[in-house]
């Protein structure tokens, strides 16, 4: 369903994608995995025809450069940072999207219910939380039930609970006629959602493997994300650094580099120092 041959993208003299080729069949879920700057988002933007490139990209046999409108009509896209017209309401945003896709307005309500935004129809987009905006982005992508879904770090701006809900929703979207392309740097998400991983580095595919093999083949470190009470985070960070851990602030908590066989030691140190652990999860 997606066929990419010799994809090369340069920004002036900087080669961002270097002769990338891969194909994805109907029913497959594939992750583009790599660190920041590896080229994941650029591939997605080329697939959408937002960037000029060398090589060829075909979606269901449609060359995106020759038939950009037809090709985009079978694609739903969730960008890394969802951006909408802040003055529009949730329903107006989806109505605009429906009009541009020539889809009946009846589907708007169904799609909003699918992402649990049915009770937020009249709310202006700028009044939505980050998580709700991400769900609205998902609704825009799902409108019209497109066979190809491109999801650029779809959980990056979500808290732990919202991320779980999003992963569950994405899992439910898999099907024999649908292609899911997800960019991510979270191994655990990749493991839950995809069949195949394309590992990228410096604009090239360096490995192609199953999600189960990714950690060992890429020799990835493990990180423990610990959610603490906001007033204790700074003190907890200092405590862990004094204990010799590599740790940093991250959103609602701390991100600590851990040995894969000794993850509990961080939690033990924090508990001994009487910090209240509200939640934790392993990131790789």
């Amino acid at each position: 369903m997606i066929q990419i041959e010799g994809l090369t993208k340069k920004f002036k003299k900087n080669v961002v994608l270097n002769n990338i080729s891969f194909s994805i069949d109907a029913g497959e879920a594939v992750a583009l995995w790599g660190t920041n700057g590896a080229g994941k988002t650029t591939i997605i933007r080329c697939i959408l025809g937002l960037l000029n490139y060398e090589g060829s990209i075909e979606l269901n046999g449609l060359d995106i450069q020759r038939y950009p409108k037809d090709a985009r009509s079978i694609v739903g896209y969730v960008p890394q940072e969802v951006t909408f017209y802040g003055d529009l309401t949730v329903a107006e945003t989806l109505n605009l999207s429906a009009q541009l896709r020539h889809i009946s307005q009846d589907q708007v309500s169904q799609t909003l219910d699918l992402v649990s935004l049915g009770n937020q129809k009249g709310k202006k987009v700028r009044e939505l939380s980050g998580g709700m905006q991400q769900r609205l982005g998902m609704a825009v992508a799902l409108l019209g039930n497109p066979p190809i879904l491109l999801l650029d770090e779809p959980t990056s701006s979500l808290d732990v609970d919202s991320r779980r809900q999003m992963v569950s929703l994405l899992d439910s979207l898999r099907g024999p006629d649908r292609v899911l392309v997800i960019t991510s740097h979270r191994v655990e998400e990749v493991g839950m959602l995809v069949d195949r991983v394309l590992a990228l580095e410096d604009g090239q595919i360096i490995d192609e493997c199953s999600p189960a093999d990714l950690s060992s083949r890429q020799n990835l470190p493990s990180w423990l994300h610990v959610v603490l009470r906001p007033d204790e985070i700074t003190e907890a960070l200092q405590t862990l650094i004094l204990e010799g851990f590599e740790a940093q602030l991250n959103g609602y908590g701390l991100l600590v580099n851990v040995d894969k066989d000794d993850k509990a030691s961080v939690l033990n140190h924090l508990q001994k120092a009487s910090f209240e652990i509200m939640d934790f999860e392993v990131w790789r």
Partner: protein
Amino acid sequence: MKTRTNNLSIFSLNQVRTISKKVIREARRDRWFWLYCIGFMALAVAITIAAVPNQTLTGSKGFGRTAASLVVLVQLVVPLMTLTLGARYISGERDSGTLVFLLCHPVSRLEVLFGTFLGLAGSLFAAVVAGFGAAGLFSALRDTPIEVGVLLKLAGLSWLLALTTLALGMCISVVTRRASTALGIALFVWMALVFLGDLGIMGSTVATRLPVELLFLTAVINPIEAFRLASVVVLDGSLDVLGPAGIYAVNSFGSTVAFLAIGVLIGWMIFSSLAAGLIFRRGDQI
């Protein structure tokens, strides 16, 4: 095997209409647009109130002091309004990320550009009508009504100037990555057209003793000067008010000079629109 699913047309008026409706809705909520509209309307009314009744500047009665003042107002305010609105539109969409939202739909870049142009043109039409409508209303209330024909002709020419400078503004918008840069360039272009077009030509004429044909060409190629030229001729005034270039225009072209000036405005609009379309179609859009 190659399969095509939808066969969407390259250019769809439905998509253009959807985009332009969105732009009009946004203009209604844009404080800058309202500021320009209210400012233009207030100045037009102030000119009408301040004008001396029944006094004509030169030529026939149609080109009265009020009409002349309205021409000056339009040549200053309308290009400022349209250049800045046009310039910050696409670049603003790119800046805020909403351009990606639009372009990930089955819509072509030309449809986005043309829909945006039409939406802004419609909004500006309302602004021009409001400004001249208010001027006409107040002049009628003072028992010194401006002729309806004069108002309509002036409003029509003002809208044409608005479309021309809007296209120029959108051309600036597609070549710049940031709305703030586009706004700066638009202001510079406005200053160049308004001040250099008028004072610059006068100064260089004195300094270089420019031949009158060249002086006329330099004047008429500037869309703002072309608007002024067209307004004076269409409103039945004497081109003497435009100095040696005006006299040369009358002697050389007679009454067809208005068509020439209007042709220059339309030419600028087409050229700017084509350039904007070509640039927007080819470049990376994020």
